[in-house]
């Protein structure tokens, strides 16, 4: 028998005793591992900073206004993301596309600001190898940016070819956007901690 499409239960319907769908459980489990990943890195930051012979004055090395802008961008993108899902709940595909498009654009904006920031550092001869503060800054914001890109790829798919599912299985599509949203909010969440830790403390 070739690859027949058998139905996996509870992909869209909720399993009664757990109250969950498979994707909902799956994304939260994945985020649990991401919490451990970024948690390990924040732990590394704490250990290295506490043990350092000297540590730069972070807010004078980094660009606080640009990072504040990026914080506002990401928070806004979180709102547009959840509004995209709400639009689907209200059966408004046009609104969904608007908000999802805005979310994607916000991601682009975030990456542009990040690029400007990084370039600024490199132009001043500040590299990951300069000291551990910068090493951690580039590594952790870089890893975060990779997660942003990942989220943007998923969102682009759901803005593009993935939208076809709205016609065939609207509930499943709406749930997919909710799950993608949970991931995107997590990316925002990590930044909510990265921002004060690296720029303000």
């Amino acid at each position, binding site marked *: 028998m070739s690859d027949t499409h058998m139905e996996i239960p509870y992909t869209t319907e909720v399993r009664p005793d757990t109250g969950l769908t498979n994707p909902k459980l799956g994304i939260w489990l994945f985020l649990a591992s991401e919490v451990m990943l970024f948690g390990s890195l924040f732990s590394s930051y704490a250990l*290295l900073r506490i043990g350092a012979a000297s540590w730069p004055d972070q807010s004078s090395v980094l660009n606080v206004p640009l990072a504040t802008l990026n914080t506002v961008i990401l928070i806004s993108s979180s709102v547009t993301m959840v509004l995209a899902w709400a639009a689907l709940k209200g059966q408004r595909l046009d609104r969904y596309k608007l908000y999802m498009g805005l979310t994607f654009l916000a991601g682009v904006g975030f990456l542009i600001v990040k690029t400007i920031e990084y370039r600024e550092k490199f132009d001043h001869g500040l590299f990951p190898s300069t000291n*551990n503060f910068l090493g951690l800054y580039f590594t952790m914001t870089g890893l975060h940016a990779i997660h942003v890109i990942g989220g943007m790829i998923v969102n682009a798919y759901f803005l593009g070819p993935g939208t076809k599912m709205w016609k065939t299985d609207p509930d499943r599509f709406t749930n997919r956007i909710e799950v993608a949203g949970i991931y995107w909010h997590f990316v925002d969440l990590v930044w909510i901690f990265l921002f004060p830790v690296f720029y303000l403390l």
Partner: protein
Amino acid sequence: MGGAATIYGLLRKYIFSTDHKVIGLQYAVTSMFFLLVGFALVVLIRWQLAYPSNELPGWLASLLGEERAPSRVLAPEFYNQLGAMHGTIMVFLGVVPLAFGAFGNYIVPLQIGAPDMAFPRLNMASYWAFFAGGVVMLASFFVPGGAASSGWTAYPPLADIALGGQTWWLVAMFLLIISSLLGAVNFIATIVQLRAPGMTWFRLPFFVWTQLVTAFLLLLAFPALQAAAVLQGMDRIAGTSFFLPSGLVVSGRAAEVAGDGSALLWQHLFWFLGHPEVYVLILPAMGIVAEVITNNTRKPLWGYRLMVYSIGVLGFLSFVVWAHHMFLTGMGTTISAFFQTTTMIISIPSVIILSSMILSLYGGSIRFTTPMLFALAFLPMFGLGGLTGLPLGLAATDIPLHDTYYVVGHFHYLVAPGTIFALFAGVYYWYPKITGRMMNDVLGRIHFVGSLICMNVIFAPMFVQGLAGVNRRLWDGGTLYTHAQGTLYLNVPMAHAALTLALFQVPFLFNLVWSARRGRVADANPWQATTLEWAAPTPPLAHGNFPHPVRAYRDPYDYSVPGATADFSPQSTASPDGVA
């Protein structure tokens, strides 16, 4: 429909399948290959330790080449590669993919009555990430400088500055960890969500419980090593000094790095994964042994509930013992006492589980089938391995034993005649469900006796050497040290036993292949077992497993139910007489 006859069809069916059974078999074949590779590496190690600085056989020396074996003698640098890669390959490419990826993938959906995993395509992605990681890991042998050679533990500063394939090791680990994380998400979601009607938590086979806890260990512990790998990668590639202290001098020259890093940070992140990892190695094995024992004693498992609670406690505690690998790093006495305490406490659930399995034998009608032989041997071997861990868990006794062969003997007893024996048991046990034929018993018994004896000859002397103070990871085995002289002769029988152990795997490998065509034909339930996988056809249906929706009506191990006609009452049938 695209039948299997087309190339595309063949690819979809056998290579890029989303069916958990195909994926499980892919994991099995790949991981067994890596087990053989890891084994080959250690046979070389054992030979070098038995006959240090002796010339290798001509054919072997030319195979290795002038750099790895200058003047036909094994180079110390290459010895270090063998050591690091043996450990890495066995743990990450061999045992875990076999225990979790292969057995877990194939058996868990069947035992819970599910049609497949919760996320079949993610499952396929997990396998290919594992495969990619394996390719990168093997390729690292052929880069300038050779493979990683800083131990499977990759401690900085050495791993940070080592020339050679350490960066490839990091890339491979990155891929392997992604594979495990995706797999873990899949297993947990599957076990939580796809249990068949009637399959309540305390009707789950113990094997499924062990896989569930294992998945949580992988999910929450591996990210720490992922983070560490990223940081070490940055150190090696971007010149950062996360793990490099100030004032480091390498080969007479000051290291040109910013410094102020912490080599111990790596150890914390590594062992935060490393300790749960060893429970990842043992838990599926415990699950398999429990299945085989209850089936071959025709009695329910003694203390099933107790075992379930124990496995949960064990899983949780495994996260808070890690620094017992770091007792010699200069930590304060209070935190040392904390880790010693948690380490001592964690032996309790282990002992409960082992005792329950032993107690399960009492009053049983024991059938000494081939899987049962391996399962029975597991018990004292695991016991010995566990007991030898006790002095390591107390800092005072760990001081003379740390980094000696005592440690190597300790963990090999747990992994080799422990886990690997359990995995052998699993292969002999589930083979008829996969292929419809039994494996040959005579070959199986030869495999068993030979492996058991050889493994003990290899690993028992390690305790003697370790207690004498022989350090691990010495390319000449310690010939330069007077305190080692009295025990080095043991390396000779150990090396011969290693080669003999290799020989005794031949009947097993032959049996695996031969029995698929020529083994005794088996019906759907040749072991007369109760768990749901035996209610599926042989082999279970592609993409669906069960022809009709299956239900769990009973506890998992209803053997010898009073009043029943047979000595087993399958979980899938309401009546104890096994009638639907």
